C-alpha cells in the first residue's frame, strides 16, 4: 500500500534529518553548554563589566529594535500600499545593507559621522557617535532591510475585505489600524521582533567598531573568547545570548494555531492620493540617502591613498589586497558560498517538505531543532565546532566551513520555505495520490515549481551570507580554506581601513551580481 510505504519513508527521512541536525546543531551547543561550570558563571557574574554590558546590550537592542520596526513598517507600507514609482530602485537600495558584513556598516558610519567624519566636519557637529548612538544607528542600518522584507511579506498576504467593511461602516483610519492591522500583525510581529532583537544583540561587528567605551555582551564575549581564551566565560555569555532566541522559541511552541490562509484574498488597492504618495517619496528618499551615503563613502575609501591625509585616487589598495592572496580567498569564498547555497537550499527544502507537508510529532522535533539554529550566535557556533570536531576528518577542510555556514544560516531560509510550503493548498497531496502522480514527481513538478521564487530567495540568502560572514568561520578556517571576509578583521586590526574597504566592496559586488542573477531568473519565470 502506497501510503504505508510513504509513512515508512517519511519516518526514515525525518529520523535521518533529525540525527544530522542533532550532530551539527545540538551537539556543538551541548558541548558549549557543558563547558559552563560554577567557576565560569561566578567569573562572569562577578566581573565589573558584566552588569553594565547586560544593560548596554538590552538598551541598545531594545531601542534599535523599536526604531528598526518603525522604519521598516513605514517603509513596507510606503512600498506596498502606495502607488509610487521607482519601487524597483528603492528595492535594490534597501537590499544593499544586507550584502555587506555588519562590521563594514560600523566602518561606514565612522567615516561619515565619526569625530573626524565627513558629515561631522561638514556640519560642524559636536556630538560623538561612539557608544549608544553609534551602536543603535549601525544596528538599525543592517537590521531594517531584513525586517522590511518580513513585514512586506505579511502585508502582501493581508486581506483587504475587513478594511473595506470598516470603511463602509465609517470606522476611521486610526481605529482601522488599531482594530484590524495590529491584531492581524500581532503574531507575525512577535516573531519579527524577536528575530530582529536576537540579530542585534548577538552581533559584535558594529559595537566593536563604533561602541567606544559602551561595551555590550557580544563584545564582552568576543574579548573573553578571542582576547583572553576564556572559553568557559565565553560559553556563559553565549548561553545568556541564547535567551532571547529561547523565549521566541517557547512563544512559537505555544503559538500553535497557524491557521490556514483563506484562499480568497481581496488584494489591497494601492493608494493614489497625492499626499500619501509625496510622503512615501520623501520617506523612501531620505532612507535611501541614509543607506547609500555611508556605503558609498566607505567604498570610495578603498580608492584613497591614505585616509584622511592623502585622498588621491589610487588602485594600490587593490594591488595590496591581491598581493595578500585576496584572489585565492575570494575563490575560497565562492566555493564555500556556492556549496552552501546548493546544499543548504536542498536540505531546507526537504526538511520543510517533511515538516510542513507531512506533519507528525517528529516534524515538530525537526522544526524545533532547525529554528534552534537561529539562536546560536556565530561566534559561539564557530567556537563550539572547533571544540566538538577538532580531530575529525572534516576539520581543517573546506567542508567544515560549508557545514558551519549552513547551520549558522539555516533557520531563516528554512522558515521562508516552511511558510511558503505551508501556504500551498493543503489538498495537493490528496490530488496527487488519487491521480496516481508519484511523490517525487509531486515534489519536483508541483511543490518545487510553485515555491521556485522562495527557493531562489533561499539560495541567494545562503550565498550572500556565506560570502560575508566573519563570526562562525574565524575559528575554523585555515590558510588554504580562508574566506575573503576574514581579511576585513585582519585589515581592521592592522589599521588598513582602505584595504578593508576594498574587500568589503569585492564582497558587495559579488553579492550584487548574485542577487541580480537570481532576480533575472525569477523574473523570467
Amino acid at each position, binding site marked *: *500500500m*502506497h*501510503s504505508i510505504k510513504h509513512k515508512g519513508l517519511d519516518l526514515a527521512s525525518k529520523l535521518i534529518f533529525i540525527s544530522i541536525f542533532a550532530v551539527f546543531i545540538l551537539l556543538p551547543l551541548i558541548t558549549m553548554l557543558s563547558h559552563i561550570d560554577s567557576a565560569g558563571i561566578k567569573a562572569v557574574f562577578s566581573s565589573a563589566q558584566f552588569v553594565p554590558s547586560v544593560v548596554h546590550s538590552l538598551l541598545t537592542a531594545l531601542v534599535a529594535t523599536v526604531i528598526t520596526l518603525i522604519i521598516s513598517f513605514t517603509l513596507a507600507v510606503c512600498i506596498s500600499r502606495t502607488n509610487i514609482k521607482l519601487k524597483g530602485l528603492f528595492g535594490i537600495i534597501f537590499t544593499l545593507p544586507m550584502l555587506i558584513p555588519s562590521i563594514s556598516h560600523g566602518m561606514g558610519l565612522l567615516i561619515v559621522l565619526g569625530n573626524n567624519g565627513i558629515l561631522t566636519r561638514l556640519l560642524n557637529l559636536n556630538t560623538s557617535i561612539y557608544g549608544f548612538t553609534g551602536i543603535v544607528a549601525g544596528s538599525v542600518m543592517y537590521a531594517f532591510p531584513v525586517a522590511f522584507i518580513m513585514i512586506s511579506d505579511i502585508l502582501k498576504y493581508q486581506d483587504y475585505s475587513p478594511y473595506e467593511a470598516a470603511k463602509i461602516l465609517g470606522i476611521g483610519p486610526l481605529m482601522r489600524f488599531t482594530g484590524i492591522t495590529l491584531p492581524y500583525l500581532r503574531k507575525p510581529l512577535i516573531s519579527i521582533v524577536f528575530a530582529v532583537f536576537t540579530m542585534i544583540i548577538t552581533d559584535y561587528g558594529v559595537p566593536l567598531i563604533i561602541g567606544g567605551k559602551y561595551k555590550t555582551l557580544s563584545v564582552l564575549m568576543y574579548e573573553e573568547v578571542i582576547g583572553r581564551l576564556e572559553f568557559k566565560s565565553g560559553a556563559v555569555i553565549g548561553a545568556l545570548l541564547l535567551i532571547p532566541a529561547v523565549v521566541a522559541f517557547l512563544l512559537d511552541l505555544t503559538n500553535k494555531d497557524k491557521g490556514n490562509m483563506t*484562499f*480568497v484574498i481581496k488584494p489591497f488597492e494601492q493608494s493614489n492620493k497625492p499626499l500619501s504618495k509625496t510622503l512615501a517619496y520623501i520617506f523612501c528618499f531620505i532612507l535611501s540617502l541614509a543607506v547609500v551615503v555611508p556605503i558609498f563613502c566607505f567604498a570610495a575609501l578603498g580608492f584613497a591613498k591614505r585616509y584622511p591625509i592623502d585622498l588621491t585616487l589610487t588602485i594600490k589598495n587593490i594591488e595590496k589586497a591581491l598581493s595578500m592572496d585576496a584572489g585565492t580567498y575570494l575563490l575560497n569564498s565562492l566555493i564555500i558560498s556556492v556549496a552552501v547555497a546548493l546544499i543548504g537550499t536542498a536540505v531546507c527544502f526537504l526538511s520543510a517538505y517533511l515538516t510542513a507537508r507531512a506533519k507528525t510529532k517528529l516534524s515538530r522535533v525537526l522544526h524545533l531543532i532547525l529554528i534552534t539554529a537561529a539562536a546560536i550566535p556565530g561566534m559561539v557556533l564557530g567556537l563550539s565546532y572547533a571544540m566538538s570536531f577538532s580531530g575529525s576528518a572534516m576539520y581543517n577542510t573546506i567542508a567544515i566551513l560549508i557545514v558551519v555556514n549552513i547551520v549558522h544560516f539555516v533557520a531563516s531560509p528554512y522558515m521562508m520555505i516552511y511558510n511558503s510550503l505551508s501556504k*500551498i*493548498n*493543503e*489538498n*495537493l497531496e*490528496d*490530488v496527487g*495520490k*488519487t*491521480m*496516481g*502522480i*508519484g511523490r517525487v*514527481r509531486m515534489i519536483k*513538478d*508541483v511543490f518545487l*515549481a*510553485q515555491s*521556485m521564487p522562495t527557493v531562489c530567495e533561499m539560495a541567494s540568502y545562503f550565498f550572500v551570507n556565506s560570502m560575508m560572514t566573519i563570526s562562525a568561520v574565524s575559528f575554523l578556517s585555515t590558510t588554504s580554506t580562508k574566506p575573503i571576509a576574514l581579511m576585513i578583521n585582519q585589515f581592521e586590526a592592522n589599521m588598513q581601513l582602505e584595504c578593508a574597504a576594498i574587500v568589503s566592496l569585492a564582497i558587495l559586488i559579488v553579492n550584487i551580481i548574485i542577487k541580480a542573477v537570481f532576480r533575472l531568473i525569477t523574473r523570467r519565470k
Partner: protein
Amino acid sequence: MADIKLSIKNLCKTYDKLPALNDVSFDVYDGEFLSILGPSGCGKTTLLRILIGLLHADSGQILKDGEDITNIDAAKRGMGIVFQNYALFENMSVLKNVEYALKIKKDTKDGAREKALAILERLGLLEHKDKKPGELSGGQQQRVAIARTLVLNPDIILFDEPMSALDVATRLMLRDELKKIQKEFGTTCIYITHDQEEAFALSDRIMVMDKSCLIQIDTPENIIDSPANDYVKSFVNENLRKKIDSLIKYVR
C-alpha cells in the same frame, strides 16, 4: 433500479478514541447522484476520504463492481475527487493542469493533449487554456478541477463541498452544469454538502448523517415525506419544501 456500483459494508473509524464513523453501510447505484448531507463534524469527510483511499477504515469493507477495493491504492480505484479549495497546480497553465497526470505515465502519454483539449472544450474553458489558475474566477477554477478529474475517465467522482467557496449565482450555474456533465458522462457522483438546498436540487438520493452515524438514505421526495426521525424532519420544514419545488423546476 440500476446495478450496484459501490457497496459499503460496516465501516468504522475512530480518531484518538473518538468515533468518526460508526458502522456505516450503504449501496451506491451506477450512474446515480448521491448527496451526503450533514452538519460539520458528522463524519462525512472521513467517509469520503475512506472511499477514495486517502484514509483507512478501522474495520469494514468497500466493494466496487463486486470487487473488494478496501486495500487498493487510491490511484487504482478509478475514482476522482474535487475539493472545495480546487487544489489546482498553481504553477501550471489550465491545459497543463488537465493533461499533467496523463503525460507523466507511459501508457496514457499519447493523445494526452487531445484528450485534455476535448474536455476543456466541453467545459467551455478552451479560451483560458494558457492561463494560470490564479488568473481565473472561482467558478472557472472549480471547472478546471472537474476537467482535471474527468480526463482520467473515473467511473465515480467524489465532491467535497465543491461550491461552498463560490457566490450564489456561480453556484446555480455550476450546479446546472454539473448535472449535465453527469448525465453526459454517465459518471456516478457522491457529493458532500452541508447545504440542504443544494443536496435536494442535485441528487437522485440523499444520505443524511449525524454524529458519525447514517440516519437515513432515500430519494429527496421520500426524505421529505417520511423523515426517519426528528433530526431529519428539522431539515425539511415547509419553507424548505417550497424552495426545493422551485429549484427542481429550475434545474429540469
